[in-house]
């Protein structure tokens, strides 16, 4: 075999890769902005940074759950959905 064969999964995940790239840039820019604007506005921006940083991995799991359900991989779609229930349940319990 000469070099790696093309990976079709890469193509199907390109939207997720692009979304994560945008999230990295967005989070970095807003975090920097939060530290230079007046504190009241800065705190609001900082909370949005925390929210996005925590929400992105959960959103990624949701994306996987939907994708696996569409592929008919119901076992792992259910596990992914259950993971989202666990994380959001923890947040609700603590709140």
């Amino acid at each position, binding site marked *: *075999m*000469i*070099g*790696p*064969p093309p*990976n*079709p*999964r*890469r193509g199907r*995940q390109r939207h*997720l*890769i692009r979304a*994560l*790239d945008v*999230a*990295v840039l967005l*989070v*970095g820019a*807003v*975090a*920097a902005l*939060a*530290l230079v604007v007046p*504190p009241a506005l*800065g*705190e609001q*921006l*900082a*909370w949005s*940074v*925390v929210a996005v*940083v*925590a*929400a*992105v*991995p*959960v959103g*990624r*799991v949701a994306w*996987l759950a939907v994708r*696996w359900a569409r*592929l008919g*991989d119901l*076992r*792992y779609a259910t*596990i*992914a959905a*259950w*993971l989202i229930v*666990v*994380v*959001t349940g*923890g*947040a609700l*319990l*603590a*709140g």
Partner: protein
Amino acid sequence: MSLPADPVLIALSAATAGIGALGGIGGAILLVPTLVLLGVEPSTAAPLGLLSVAAGSLAAGPQQLSSGTVHHRLGVTLEVVASTAAIIGAMASPHVSDRALRLVLAGAAAASALSGIRVRSIRNLPDPSFAEELPGEWPGTLAGAYLLDGEVVPYRAKRLGSGLASMVAAGLVSGLAGASGGFIKTPAMNLIMGVPVKVAAATTTFTVGITAAAGLAVFAGQGRILPLASAAVVLGGLLGGRAGTMVQERLAPGGVRRALSLVLLVIAALLVVIR
């Protein structure tokens, strides 16, 4: 002592994320003990550690997805247990004394140091009968294949029960101390479950972001997240993590990891000794 000023926090977070990325252990295991040694209460430092973990996981995501080494099904399966343990740990942490949290942190730093010093990994071998197989995870299973020097290496995760038990420890450390628990997850996937170390490390980076999110949700409910300090840590984590990953490719990982292990052992000792 109150938290360091924002520029100091950015620098600390960037430095620890960068050094942590060089050694492949993430920044939180360095950041949280450093903050505690600077006089910050462990209960205040823990949420900042989880934010550093989440930022590192976010920053690494695009590159690891492109390389196709993350086994999402394995990660999600293990994460159900790890996140549950992280939530329990985070809920319990206000009732744990600062001295006990320091000891948990010291134990985590020491364990991370030892896993770095004694790097041993299961080697999965290429199998010519899978030469036509595309790399990636196989739908409906905890198996897959990855490319090693142009050859296809198939693998299948074994001993799921033992792997899940290890995730309880990883999740509890995350929730209690704010460290990532990756120093437990990657060796557990590799040594116990037989997953190739490259896949185990990439999958761990994906899962620690979810564990951090679970812990952060609880910390937010407890009112323990300081927003401006959080922004500083996230910004530093993103910058340092990216820089460390770029430099890492040009360095021999073994030497860096061993040097980092010595630093972690010193930090662990200081956490125990200094009151």
